[in-house]
């Protein structure tokens, strides 16, 4: 049992810790060594401000009521983050380039720095967020009450919030204090709050840790692991029939929209971002965080239903489950987790809202009151800081009042999704603004207004069940009893979940009016300019707008204005830096268009685009926005895009051509080497017989006293060698003719066996002289083929000669087998010689190749190349069969015309 004091002390200690972290973070960032503060991990953790107490406590409640539905709240953001490259990156880039301070600032800046649009967005954001803040207050107070008044009764029936009012007030006040101290130290630099971000990151870890701790406790201490949990009766919560219906789809989209459009999410994701590479990690780490946050939701829900008494409030299971088994430490941890979720949301949301209120509502009002009033007050800075502090207090007060007024009703429970649907109205203007140049302020205003009103009418007001503006009977029967206008069945659209119904009407109307309005009304020049700068943000260099806006002002006026907003030190720095950039020694730069644009952007980082423009406009004269120039730049970017695509295509083509050339070159080099080789071998093969011929003829010429038999012998050598030379020359010519396709062919129908047998017979002489034996297992089959008999014979003789000459075995044998299939005549010639070394096998049919020449005693290895070419011409093949262990085997095939040649009796088979 935890005492109230312990809870109180722990909370205080925890808050003190947060203060310290925020303080250290701020100090580090200010000292310039940002280090861990700017790490992508801290950035990612700060985005997890998405998980408020509504998810910390409420996800379990949602799982009890609607099964898996809670997962959509995390799946939508997951999809947005894994697709960061296309949306978030663009938002962040625009945010950096235009020094965007809030989502209202972004929309206003995009649509011609419109003040009215900024006000509209701010109002919607405040109305949508206040109940959400109230929800956090309720969650914290309820959790404290549950712990303090822990008895079976309260476990079953959560206490009413009445006695908690005072506590809630102090909680709200504490949060306001923290936010004011760390959230409004400065007014500039893209509204980054490093101290706050650091504290939020710590809170993100605490809530994750707490939820996982409770989850592990439930799964492994209260049950026997996940399988056991899911085998409990209570797992039936998963078995709702139509889980994946329109509501599932709507919620997935809605949460995806919320992660972009919620003011606090925009604040942490876009405004507090210090570099695009932070997104790189967040793209997977944030979804992973969400996954971990939801991993134990189902087990805790099932565990709560199993262990706790019937009727217990499922929204407090995270707390009451450890309480029911007196796990005090876990209870405390869970409480801190919930506390963290609530406080981080409230802090970031109130910072975001206060920035919007001060920049978009207070500033414009101050500007509209006579100019001198600000001048007299001396420093716009002070006004801004004060208005921001007051806004924070105001927002929290509003939240607190809301909590008091509606604390008893159940309306708060649903407010999470209602708030989502409210801010979802920003989506058409936001997306249209960054992807569609034609989108205009009129369209955005129409869409936003209509969407907002419809959201209020169909979802927000009915959620009070008659307590606010709309009476219960109006909700039930429509205003003045007109059924057509029933808030939850508008225009007769019945049978839908109220959320899906409201989302459909509000977003559809919003989108249609936004597009229609944009097409109907011509954009103002500044809208056109901003549209181009936003949509083409990746192609427009920073600070390019001075190319389109011409205006003049004195440097002194600009300086006075700047120091009012930035403070004099900062203003001096900005001016001096720009002067340096212009190559001037002076403290004041030339007031060029570029400088004015630069200054305006710098001011926008403090007071928002609309106010910055309004203030600059007061002191500049002769402003013109050059649309021609804008058109030109639009054309230019289009051309640039086309050009870069062209270049990419060209370079790919070039690459391919270069590859082709390289390949051709390699082939040529190889061919050249082969040619050299060939010539060198031809030379060798010609010179060898020539040597004998010359040498012996010289002997015969010189020597008188030669005996007749010896002279005869020498003459026969000369004769033999000259024949060899002739044969060689014939082969070379053959090869050459074959290459050019001019060899004379004598093709006709014949029995394949005839030339084959003739070839075999003609080799028998050679075989006998070397002691080899030619074996023919059975007579060669007869079949009609189209062939040149002499050529066919040449092939077989060539192979047989090789087989005989190179056979070094003790009992040389050459075996010939013939086979006839339906389409093919096939003979195999194998020997029991040494075989062809495996490294030479791939090359034996190539001309010029070395291996054959080295081992041949005659010819230069053209024989096989010629044979292969002949067989190809005859429509057949010649191949080396690779499966022999011993010797060499060649296979010759020929296409068969007809199996049985008519009368012709082959003379084969007597071998």
């Amino acid at each position, binding site marked *: 049992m935890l005492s109230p004091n312990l809870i109180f002390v722990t909370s205080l200690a925890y808050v003190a810790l947060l203060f310290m972290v925020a303080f250290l973070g701020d100090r580090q960032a200010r000292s310039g060594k940002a280090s861990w503060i700017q790490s992508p991990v801290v950035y990612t953790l700060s985005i997890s401000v998405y998980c408020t107490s509504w998810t910390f406590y409420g996800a379990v409640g949602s799982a009890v009521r609607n099964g898996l539905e809670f997962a959509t709240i995390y799946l939508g953001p997951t999809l947005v983050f894994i697709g960061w490259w296309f949306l978030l990156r663009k938002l962040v880039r625009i945010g950096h380039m235009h020094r965007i301070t809030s989502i209202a600032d972004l929309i206003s800046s995009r649509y011609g720095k419109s003040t009215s649009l900024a006000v509209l967005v701010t109002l919607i954001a405040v109305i949508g967020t206040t109940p959400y803040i109230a929800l956090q207050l309720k969650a914290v107070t309820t959790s404290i009450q549950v712990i303090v008044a822990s008895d079976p009764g309260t476990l079953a029936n959560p206490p009413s919030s009445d006695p908690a009012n005072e506590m809630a007030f102090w909680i709200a006040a504490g949060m306001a204090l923290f936010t004011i101290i760390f959230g409004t130290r400065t007014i500039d630099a893209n509204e980054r709050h490093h101290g706050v971000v650091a504290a939020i990151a710590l809170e993100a870890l605490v809530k994750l840790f707490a939820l996982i701790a409770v989850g592990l406790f439930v799964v492994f201490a209260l049950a026997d692991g996940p399988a056991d949990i899911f085998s409990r009766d209570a797992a039936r919560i998963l078995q709702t029939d139509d889980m994946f219906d329109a509501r599932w789809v709507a919620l997935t989209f809605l949460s995806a929209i919320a992660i972009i459009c919620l003011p606090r999410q925009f604040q942490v994701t876009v405004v507090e971002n210090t570099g695009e590479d932070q997104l790189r990690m967040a793209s997977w780490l944030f979804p992973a965080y969400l996954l971990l946050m939801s991993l134990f939701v189902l087990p805790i829900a099932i565990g709560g239903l199993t262990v706790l008494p019937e009727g217990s409030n499922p929204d407090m299971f995270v707390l009451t489950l450890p309480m029911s088994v007196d796990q005090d430490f876990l209870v405390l941890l869970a409480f801190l987790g919930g506390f963290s979720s609530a406080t981080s949301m409230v802090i970031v949301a109130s910072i975001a809202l206060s920035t919007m209120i001060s920049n978009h509502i207070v500033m414009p009002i101050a500007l509209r009151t006579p100019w001198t009033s600000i001048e007299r007050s001396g420093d716009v800075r002070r006004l801004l800081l004060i208005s921001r502090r007051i806004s924070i207090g105001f927002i929290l007060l509003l939240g607190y009042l809301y909590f008091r007024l509606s604390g008893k009703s159940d309306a708060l429970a649903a407010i999470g999704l209602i708030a989502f649907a409210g801010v979802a109205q920003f989506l058409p203007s936001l997306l249209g603004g960054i992807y569609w140049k034609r989108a205009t302020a009129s369209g955005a205003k129409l869409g936003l207004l209509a969407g907002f009103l419809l959201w209020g009418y169909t979802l927000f007001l009915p959620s009070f069940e008659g307590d606010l503006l709309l009476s219960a009977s109006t909700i039930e029967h429509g205003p003045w009893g007109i059924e057509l206008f029933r808030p939850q069945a508008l225009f007769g659209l019945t049978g839908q979940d109220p959320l899906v119904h409201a989302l459909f009407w509000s977003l559809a109307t919003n989108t249609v009016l936004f597009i229609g309005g944009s097409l109907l009304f011509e954009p103002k020049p500044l809208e056109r300019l901003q549209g181009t700068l936003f949509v083409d943000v990746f192609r427009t260099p920073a600070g390019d707008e001075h190319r389109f806006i011409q205006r003049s002002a004195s440097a002194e006026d600009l300086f006075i204005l700047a120091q009012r907003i930035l403070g004099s030190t900062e203003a001096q720095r900005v001016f001096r830096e720009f002067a340096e950039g212009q190559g001037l020694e002076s403290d004041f730069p030339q007031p060029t268009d570029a400088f004015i644009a630069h200054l305006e952007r710098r001011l926008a980082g403090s007071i928002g685009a609309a106010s910055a423009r309004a203030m600059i406009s007061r002191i500049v004269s002769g402003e013109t926005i050059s649309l021609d120039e804008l058109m030109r730049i639009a054309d230019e970017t289009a051309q640039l895009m086309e050009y870069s695509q062209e270049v990419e295509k060209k370079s790919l083509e070039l690459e391919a051509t270069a590859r082709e050339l390289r390949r051709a070159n390699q082939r040529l080099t190889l061919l050249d080497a082969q040619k050299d080789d060939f010539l060198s071998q031809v030379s060798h093969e010609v010179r060898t017989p020539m*040597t004998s011929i010359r*040498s012996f003829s*010289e002997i015969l010429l*010189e020597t008188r006293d030669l005996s007749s038999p010896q002279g005869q012998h020498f003459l026969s050598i000369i004769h*033999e060698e000259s024949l060899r030379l002739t044969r060689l020359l014939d082969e070379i010519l053959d090869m050459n003719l074959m290459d050019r396709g001019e060899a004379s062919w004598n093709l006709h129908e014949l029995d394949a066996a005839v030339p084959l047998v003739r070839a075999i017979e003609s080799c028998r002489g050679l075989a006998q002289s070397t002691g080899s034996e030619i074996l023919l297992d059975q007579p060669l089959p007869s079949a009609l083929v189209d062939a040149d008999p002499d050529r066919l014979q040449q092939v077989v003789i060539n192979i047989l000669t090789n087989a005989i000459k190179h056979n070094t075995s003790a009992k040389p044998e050459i075996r010939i087998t013939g086979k006839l299939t339906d389409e093919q005549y096939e003979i195999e010639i194998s020997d029991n010689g040494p075989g062809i070394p495996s490294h030479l096998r791939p090359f034996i049919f190539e001309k010029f190749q070395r291996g054959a020449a080295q081992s041949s005693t005659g010819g230069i290895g053209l024989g096989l190349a010629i044979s292969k070419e002949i067989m190809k011409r005859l429509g057949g093949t010649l191949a080396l069969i690779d499966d022999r262990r011993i010797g060499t085997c060649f296979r010759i095939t020929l296409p068969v015309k007809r199996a049985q040649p008519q009368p012709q009796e082959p003379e084969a088979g007597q071998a």
Partner: protein
Amino acid sequence: MTKRVFIAEDEPNILESLSFLLGREGWEVTSALDGNSALEQLNAGSLPDVVILDIMLPHRNGFDILRQLRASPRTRDLPVIVLTAKGQEKDRKTAEEIGANAFVTKPFSNKDVVDQVRRLAGL
């Protein structure tokens, strides 16, 4: 004393003509038809006065044999005539680099070969 010449040549007809030419001049001719046996014979028995070495020998080419000969102290100074049928400048250079004493291109003139053998034998 009879001078001895060793011929490594794989073409039997060329070997026959060289043997005839030198034998007629009073040389004692020993020979080998392939690279391995050529190297074996040179390393084993008594050294000849002159060696005629064909480059395109089976198993082990002439250049290789020449390198082996030059590497061993016993045969380092043995006079060697390199015979080649390729007649490429490259071969001539290689032969000179690894220490051939003379280089003869096929088809050769009988007189030329005999003169070279004589010169190298110091006759």
